[in-house]
């Protein structure tokens, strides 16, 4: 299935197939995510959402099919190179650097923007001073955005779960990415945390393209302009969330398979 393409989609996938031995996890998924869009990927457990997600951000190589990010084919490009081209992602479980402080986490997120070396650090070179200045400015912005201004010196591992997720977004934001992939960002959050999180995503959305794989329908409904439903590795429908959720095939496949939603 192909959606009407605009000039240059931020993320575009064509006929993605992924087989693990005899199991077909994904079977012919195509999608186009326009620049500036918040795009949702939903589906019941085991539908292939996470596989699709990992393929789109270059962690997993598809059996066949092609992915373009900002018009560039990503086949054969190592994940850290994709990350350096302005693409950031968060993880479902291993979200933060638990042993480090909030501020050090943000520092790690800034990795690609540092230009000074060990000698520059020893002798306090201009490059080092510039890097430090840029890091401080960006860190203050991000700390305010994610609401962790007062927690900067606390260890990430001791923070509440919902707060860790906000920090994970903060790490991703440090490189000021153009495209962000969020893997089940609201999983395991309580109602209050989810509401805070939705507000955070809204605040950072302008000027970015955001892809969200999510289980929580409320999140998709409140954030996404369009959502793709994947069932049994096949794309079912792409549309505005309220249309998607009333689509007959989605109702039977998705809601029938998962009582919570």
């Amino acid at each position, binding site marked *: 299935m192909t959606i009407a393409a605009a000039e240059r989609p931020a993320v575009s996938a064509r006929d993605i197939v992924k087989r693990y031995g005899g199991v077909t996890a994904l079977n012919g998924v195509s999608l186009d995510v326009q620049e500036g869009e918040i795009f949702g990927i939903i589906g019941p457990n085991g539908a292939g959402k996470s596989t699709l997600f990992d393929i789109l*951000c270059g962690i997993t190589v598809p059996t066949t099919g092609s992915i373009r990010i900002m018009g560039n084919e990503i086949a054969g490009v*190592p*994940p*850290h190179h994709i*990350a*350096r081209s302005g693409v*950031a*992602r*968060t*993880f479902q479980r*291993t*979200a*933060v*650097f*638990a*042993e*480090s*402080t909030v*501020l*050090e986490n*943000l*520092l*790690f*997120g*800034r*990795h*690609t923007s*540092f230009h*000074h*070396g*060990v000698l*520059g*650090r*020893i002798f306090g070179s201009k490059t*080092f001073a510039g*890097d*430090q200045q840029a*890091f*401080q400015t960006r*860190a*203050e912005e991000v700390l305010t955005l994610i609401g962790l201004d007062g927690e*900067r*010196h*606390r260890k990430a591992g001791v923070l509440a779960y919902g707060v860790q997720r906000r920090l994970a977004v903060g*790490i*991703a934001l*440090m*490189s000021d990415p153009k495209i962000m992939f969020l893997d089940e960002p609201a999983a395991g959050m309580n109602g209050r945390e989810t509401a805070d999180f939705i507000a955070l995503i809204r605040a950072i959305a302008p000027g970015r393209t955001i892809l969200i794989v999510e289980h929580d329908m409320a999140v998709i409904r409140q954030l996404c302009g369009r959502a793709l439903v994947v069932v049994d590795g096949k794309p079912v429908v792409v549309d505005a969330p309220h249309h998607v959720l009333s689509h007959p095939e989605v109702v039977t496949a998705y809601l029938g398979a998962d009582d919570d939603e």
Partner: protein
Amino acid sequence: MIDSKQVGVSDRKMSGRTAREASSVACALIVIAVFAYTFSDPFVVTLAGYTCAFALFALSINIILGGVGEVPLGQCLFFGVGAYGAAIGMGKLGLPFQVSVFIALILSVVLAAIIGVITLRLTGAYFSIVSWGLTGVAMVAATNLEEVTGGPLGLFGFPPIEIGPLQLSDPQTYFAVTATILLLAILFLVALRRSPFGAAMDSVRQNRHLARSVGVDVARVRLKAFMLSAPFAALAGALAVPYTQIVTPEVFSVANTVDGLLMVLLGGAQLVVGPVIGAAMFTLIPQAMNLDPNIRILVFSSIIILIMMFAPGGLHQLGVALRDRFGGKTDDDRSR
């Protein structure tokens, strides 16, 4: 790494920090000088020199253990390369000590590059076991290449070991040289920890996948750390030669690596000076208590178990905890 603690802190405090570091270096230099020239017992001074050499080895192990989070059971391979390099260069080729050591250092880096490319694809126990296996290969080679290595008896009977005018056979000079090299190594590693590469290592150790997602080339960072750790171990091996005066295939024994690992665990892996504290304890305690080598292992195994139970961060963590308890400091104070 850029010192994250400095964000939002005034310039005055930053220069205070630098001044404190400069004064610690000055203090260390004074301690080295005083120790080297006041202690008259040549045995104690030589042992202190050897401790400094072995502390370098512990630092090398800690680049991998505390840096990227692998347990380098094969690190004595590079220690052996340094020791044999110095011994073969001096004894067989008639090269000056420093030239032999320099060649050995280069060799160790090349060897680390080759081994690293192959073994660093593995992680956890797999990496440890394969690297341990390679030291077995080295031991067999050293035992059998009699022409080069002297076989099972090893190499001994070196000409007087000297670096230019510095006679390493003189205990005080030996100590001063090894201690100064150790100090330089510590300074370098402190700067390394705070550099972007140090931050990259730390992120790789804590969470490889997340590190990759923020643009860290995980494989490259691991390889660079491995290649960086090798010359430290080789230097340690070479600087041990003036003390041991003999190099046998035993240098490739895993017991050697385990000694270094124990030092790191004793002192604490998350701090650059941790392994140095550990090395000092590791050589001083048996000396002071006049322990039999077999009992030594028993004592240290027990100490390690106690440390792992009550202070997983090593003696350094224990020291900080005690200071905070009696100095009335809270977590919050410390983070400032």
